[in-house]
Each structure stands twice: as structure tokens, then as C-alpha cells.
């Protein structure tokens, strides 16, 4: 259970307050709001990168030296990977074994691409690699921060198809942050409006 009640963060003079969020495993919740209200900050906070400030919050417990059960998918796959490393190194870093190989085929990715560097793949392919990297066995929740905003509609549809199927199979809770109301309408169980 991922829960945030009366969360806020202070940015200098500015005070950003967050809407209340409740996300159970197996549930898909959308968050929509105009750009610039701090949606990425919310994602970073739930992922534990920005310190949490809230009246009441609960996050799954994180074991030391193990991957965070709340994984964060960022907007642009291009920035999610170290440009100097091959994708194999990047995936090995999160999985610490090569159990991800069968997943590659499910996601329509070629295993030979693992030897490439991020600048040799398209945005859609990178975003799928990014997703696989986050889908380590311990993952319980996914925070998707505008993950398909930079993709064309066909790639976008494929991406969500893959993601929703996996979420269903593995009983993941997914928080979808987007400003596309149709997308949220199509995939979410309920939508939180900022």
C-alpha cells in the first residue's frame, strides 16, 4: 500500500502541496494536472529520492542494498541510462543476474541490442528497456512520470499494452502521471486531479 496524505515540499519561498494519493497493489491510479505544479517532484518523493514531508504517509519498507520496491520511470528514456554503458550493463545493474532475458522477447526487444549504447536506440525502445530494468522481482509499485509523452501513438499504445499486462500478471500498483486525459481515462481505475 502506497499512501500519501497532505504531502508538501518547500522549494525556497514556494510551498508545493500534493493531492492525497492511495495506491493498492494491482490498482492503476492516474494523476493529472497542468504542467509546472510539481508532478515530477511528486514522483521523486514517492520513489524516495526527494525527502518525504507529509502528515501521513506509508511506503513499502526498503531493505538495505536491495532495489526499492517503488520504482520510478522517468519521462525520457534517453536520460535514464548512462550514455557510456551498454544496455546489458545497465540491466545487470538492477537485476544482478540475467533473468530479464525472457522478458526482452515479451517486449519485442532483440537480445542483440543489449550490446548497444543508449544513443543507438530509439526513444520507444529505450523506454521499454527502462521498464524492464525497473521490473526486478522485488518491485511492487511503478511510478510512471509522463513515460509516453515523447512517443508516437503506435509506440505509446504498444508500451502501455506491455506495461498493463505485466502489472496485471505481477499484481503491481501503477501510478500514472500524465496530462493526456484520454490516456488516463483508458487505463486507470480512478484518477486524482491536482
Amino acid at each position, binding site marked *: 500500500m502506497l499512501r500519501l496524505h497532505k504531502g508538501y515540499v518547500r522549494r525556497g519561498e514556494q510551498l508545493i502541496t500534493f493531492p492525497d494519493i492511495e495506491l493498492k497493489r494491482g490498482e*492503476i491510479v492516474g494523476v493529472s494536472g*497542468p*504542467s*509546472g505544479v510539481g508532478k515530477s517532484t511528486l514522483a521523486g518523493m514517492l520513489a524516495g529520492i526527494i525527502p518525504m514531508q507529509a502528515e501521513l504517509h506509508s511506503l513499502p519498507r526498503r531493505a538495505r542494498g536491495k532495489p526499492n520496491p517503488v520504482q520510478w520511470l522517468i*519521462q525520457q528514456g534517453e536520460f535514464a541510462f548512462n550514455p557510456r554503458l551498454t544496455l546489458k550493463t545497465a540491466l545487470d545493474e538492477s537485476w544482478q543476474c540475467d533473468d530479464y532475458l525472457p522478458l526482452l522477447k515479451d517486449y519485442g526487444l532483440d537480445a542483440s541490442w543489449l550490446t548497444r549504447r543508449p544513443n543507438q536506440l*530509439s*526513444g*520507444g525502445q529505450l523506454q521499454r528497456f527502462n521498464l524492464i530494468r525497473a521490473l526486478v522481482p522485488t518491485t511492487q509499485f511503478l511510478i510512471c512520470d*509522463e513515460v509516453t*509523452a*515523447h*512517443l*508516437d*501513438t*503506435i*509506440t*505509446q*499504445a504498444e508500451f*502501455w*499494452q506491455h506495461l*498493463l*499486462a505485466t*502489472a*496485471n500478471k505481477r499484481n503491481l500498483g501503477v501510478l500514472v502521471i500524465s*496530462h*493526456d*486525459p*484520454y*490516456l488516463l*481515462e*483508458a*487505463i486507470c*481505475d480512478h484518477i486524482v486531479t491536482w
Partner: protein
Amino acid sequence: MLTVEGLSIQSDAVSLLSPLSFSLKQGEVLGVIGASGSGKSLLAQALMGQVPPGFKLGGKVISQQGARRALAAQSASVLDPLRLIGSQLRYAAQRLGKRASTRRHYFKLGGNITERYRHQLSGGMAKRALMAQACWQSSEIMIADEPCCGLDVEAALAIYQHLAMLARDEQLGVMVISHNLRQLLPIADRVLVLRDGRAVEMTTPAHIRAGACDEYTHRFWTALPEHWESERVAVA
């Protein structure tokens, strides 16, 4: 009027853009769609006469009466990091003709944009600055590369409406590269579809909506979330 004949980008081994022919009339909005990596941005660059190093530009781009072309680039990295946005735009407007003043009202930029540097702009502000820059250059042809990528719905809508108005009121030829079909189709007169550096077809929004187009083109339309079949949602 801009006429493109057999425009291509090739090296000895690789072809990034296969020969491509189309025209763009004044007062017309031409949409360009395609998957990422299909050569949309390359087409925009080729029209401006730029190619990646090691590649050759083929074909001809004929613009009647020496119509000037302006490109609103995809990322803010083309803006000078060391000068205020306002001073860069004033320079663009002064250098290129008198018509700039009449076009000023298309992309109104407040002091919150003109009095800032590149790194202080948010994504939406940077896009507006880029559009204004291209617009004020008093060109006859304007090419906008992903003008609304990463903007929220209202901001994107405002930019698309401005582009449509530019074409209609100022008789500009506007080429919009986008993957946002929902917002592109209402303003586009014709749509060019690219796939792997080749033109699939030249069609119109009405045809795309009706499905009277290439199967590949139609897939872009049906892949919009509002057209997803309910079974897909049921999977979730």
C-alpha cells in the same frame, strides 16, 4: 510556395531519407507524422539545408520568389545560453524585415520569458520562445519540429491554434512535425506520413479519420488512447 523534388539524405552505405517529393502552398498547414526514427526531424533539417556529418543532401528544394524558411527547433539547445531570450528575439526580428512587428501578437511573450536565460525556462516557455523566434523571422515558410512535446493540453492547444492562425491570416506555409494526432489533425490541411525514411503517403485528416488511407497511417489513428478497444482496458 515550396516545392520539394527528390529530397534525400544518403551516404554510400546508408540512406536516412529516401527521395521525397511534395509541395507546400502558402496558407496551408502540412502535418508530418511517423514513428520515432522515421526521419521527421531529418526532413526538417534537410529543408533547412543541414545534414548530419558524413551524409549528402540530394534533390532540390525550390521556393518561389525566394521564400524564406524558418525552423522552430525541437529543443531549447539552439538558443544562446549567454543572452537574454528577449535580446535574441529582438535581434532575429530586426535582422529580418519589417513584418515582424505585425506578427508580434502571434506568440506573445511576457517578461517572465524575455527577461530570462535559456536554462531558466520551463519546457513550455522554451517552446513558446522557439516558436516566436521562428515566427518573427518574417519568413514565408515555417517549420515547427514537435512544437508541443511535453506540454499540457491547454498549452499545446494554444500553440497549435496560433500556428493555424499564422497560416490563415498571414498566408504562411506551415509544416508541423508532431506525433500528437489528436491536436494535429484539426489544424492540418494535408498529412505526410513517413516510415523508416520513406514517404508512405500524402493524405488528409478526413481520410485518416475515415480510415480511407494506408493501413499503417490508420494505425496511428487507432492507437490513440480514446480508440483503444475495451478489451485492452479489461486486461488492466
